[in-house]
């Protein structure tokens, strides 16, 4: 069983490039070049230099002593929250901006939900002096004002998506439409392991620096390169893809993907795509997605804006279908409590997305000697308003 993309762009039955002909030349250009460019020595050198000096990698693998005591197991946190811009997203945008430059593109577009990927894209565009346009749902613009301001300060143009449900999926549609209108000079930096092939594979490879570092750091700290469990939250799935990547073929490593159950899986307000989704096509990829019986894509819900995507990357759909990864759904309430617990026990305020991963500690028994890695994908600064309202702080 392979968990990597095949030469046609599929993970098992999922993936592919279901795109209108108008996008074919852009996507094909990328498909033909992405591996070649990523393997160039000069690319690798520049990529790793920036990850080190600009992003601040390697991010620490921190042994969470008090959390470990509480749950009677060995818990390590992969501190992606300490990256520049506050989350794992920047690993991908650094990679893609270098890719765009080598493809000769001088205009960058991106979609964003809560604004984290938008900020990470605007940041690398400022760094490289490249024009940046970020599409963001009108509703998200209203509820994520600080990130909108950050993007503007960084020189990006934030364009409201006013169609459909006016959130992430519509922002993605608008970005795709922009790409159709500007096929020659523009590169589309997708923020997750979603979209047409080769995006899911390319983004997973850029994020794979996370599991690469985990292996090295674990070898130093525990004298083994293989943890027993790796836990990560999944919206589109990029931080999970990064945390799982080097363990995909090591079946002894249990992979746990945590989805947002919102108000409860059966509440009608949820983003638990693996459970509620059905096979279909979203944003150019065949994968699991939340949709009506008639095939219309529905709007998911989660308290965390980074997890409410109605689809999931094709890699994750494959991990779900094959049973390679365990999928657990965590409600808003469980996530918020877990976020507060981490704050109290370890002095780390996590992004609410990441809080979902921590809530698994209460749901699942781990052995005393198990090494459990939790990918702390982002910091909670952006979520203070939500925490304040939820806990009446």
């Amino acid at each position: 069983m392979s968990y990597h993309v095949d030469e046609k762009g599929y993970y098992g039955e999922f993936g592919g490039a279901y795109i209108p002909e108008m996008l074919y030349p852009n996507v094909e250009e990328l498909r033909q070049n992405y591996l070649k460019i990523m393997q160039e020595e000069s690319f690798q050198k520049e990529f790793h230099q920036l990850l080190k000096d600009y992003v601040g990698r390697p991010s620490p693998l921190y042994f969470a002593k008090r959390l470990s005591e509480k749950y009677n197991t060995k818990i390590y946190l992969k501190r992606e929250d300490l990256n520049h811009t506050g989350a794992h997203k920047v690993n991908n945008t650094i990679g893609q901006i270098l890719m765009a430059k080598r493809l000769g593109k001088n205009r960058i577009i991106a979609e964003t939900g809560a604004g984290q990927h938008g900020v990470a894209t605007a940041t690398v565009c400022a760094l490289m002096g490249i024009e940046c346009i970020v599409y963001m749902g009108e509703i998200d613009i209203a509820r994520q004002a600080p990130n909108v301001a950050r993007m503007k300060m960084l020189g990006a143009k934030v364009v409201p998506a006013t169609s459909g449900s006016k959130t992430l999926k519509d922002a993605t549609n608008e970005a795709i439409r922009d790409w159709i209108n500007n096929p020659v000079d523009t590169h589309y930096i997708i923020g997750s392991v979603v979209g047409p092939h080769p995006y899911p594979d390319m983004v997973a490879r850029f994020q794979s620096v996370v599991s690469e570092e985990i292996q090295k750091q674990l070898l130093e700290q525990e004298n083994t390169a293989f943890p027993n469990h790796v836990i990560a939250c999944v919206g589109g799935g990029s931080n999970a893809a990064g945390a799982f990547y080097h363990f995909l073929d090591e079946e002894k490593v249990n992979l746990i993907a945590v989805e947002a159950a919102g108000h409860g899986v059966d509440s009608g307000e949820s983003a638990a795509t693996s459970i509620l989704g059905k096979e279909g096509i979203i944003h150019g990829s065949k994968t699991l997605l939340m949709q009506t019986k008639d095939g219309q894509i529905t709007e998911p819900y989660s308290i965390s804006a980074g997890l409410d995507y109605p689809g999931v990357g094709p890699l994750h759909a494959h991990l779900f279908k094959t049973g390679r990864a365990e999928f657990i759904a965590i409600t808003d309430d469980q996530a918020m409590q877990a976020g507060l617990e981490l704050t109290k026990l370890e002095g780390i305020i996590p992004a609410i997305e990441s809080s979902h991963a921590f809530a698994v500690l209460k749901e699942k028994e781990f052995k005393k000697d198990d090494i459990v890695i939790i990918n702390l994908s982002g910091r909670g600064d952006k979520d203070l308003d939500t925490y304040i309202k939820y806990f009446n702080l």
Partner: protein
Amino acid sequence: MNRIQQKLQENKKLVSIYFTAGYPTLTDTKSIIENLEKAGTDIIEIGLPFSDPLADGPTIQESSTKALKNGMNSEVLFEQLKDIRSTVNIPLIIMGYFNPMLQYGVEEFCKKCNEIGIDGLIIPDLPVDVYDEAYKSLFEKYNLTNIFLITPQTSDERIRYIDSISNGFIYMVSSASVTGAKNTFGEQQKAYFERINNLNLKTPQIVGFGISNKETFEQATTYAKGGIIGSAFVKHITNHPIGKIKDFFIFA
């Protein structure tokens, strides 16, 4: 020979009209088709609305959103069209995105189209190679013509491949844009129209995207067999009663 192939043999420039099924109201579908035929339309593209129409501009997006709110879906559309062939003779094509067809069941969808008398399908997000590999035989089994798109960025080699597996017309997207975006055609488009003409394809081409008046229709059909009008027509029925569809044809 099906109705599309017969129509393409007529010695005239063809006018093809797109509209979104279920818009402005749910039950307008049949009467729009009948009025379009009476007004002289050669081919009709019936848009099956989708929640996330990636290749469409604002006009068709809005009509799709409204049509879905009105309750349009594959099943309703097939029910509305079940007797359409007792009144309408011109070629009818369903244009829609792939996911609703996938959920309906691709074979079941094709079978239903065949029963009703639909002649072809345009599915912008079903890639040519996937069609060729997985669905071509189904389409043939149910006598459906699949219409592929080409754009100014499509390479000659790929156009030749698309030409080789086409059995109706090629939908020639006029410029790098979503639907409805342009008002006139410039030098770039003219050069593209000429380039395609010089390829001497076996499949006739019909130009779409950006045709909104007599001038753009004539420019687009200098070499091509016809032109497709979508957004401009959707705007017309947004603002005028269905009985006035014939007024829209003053330009053509």
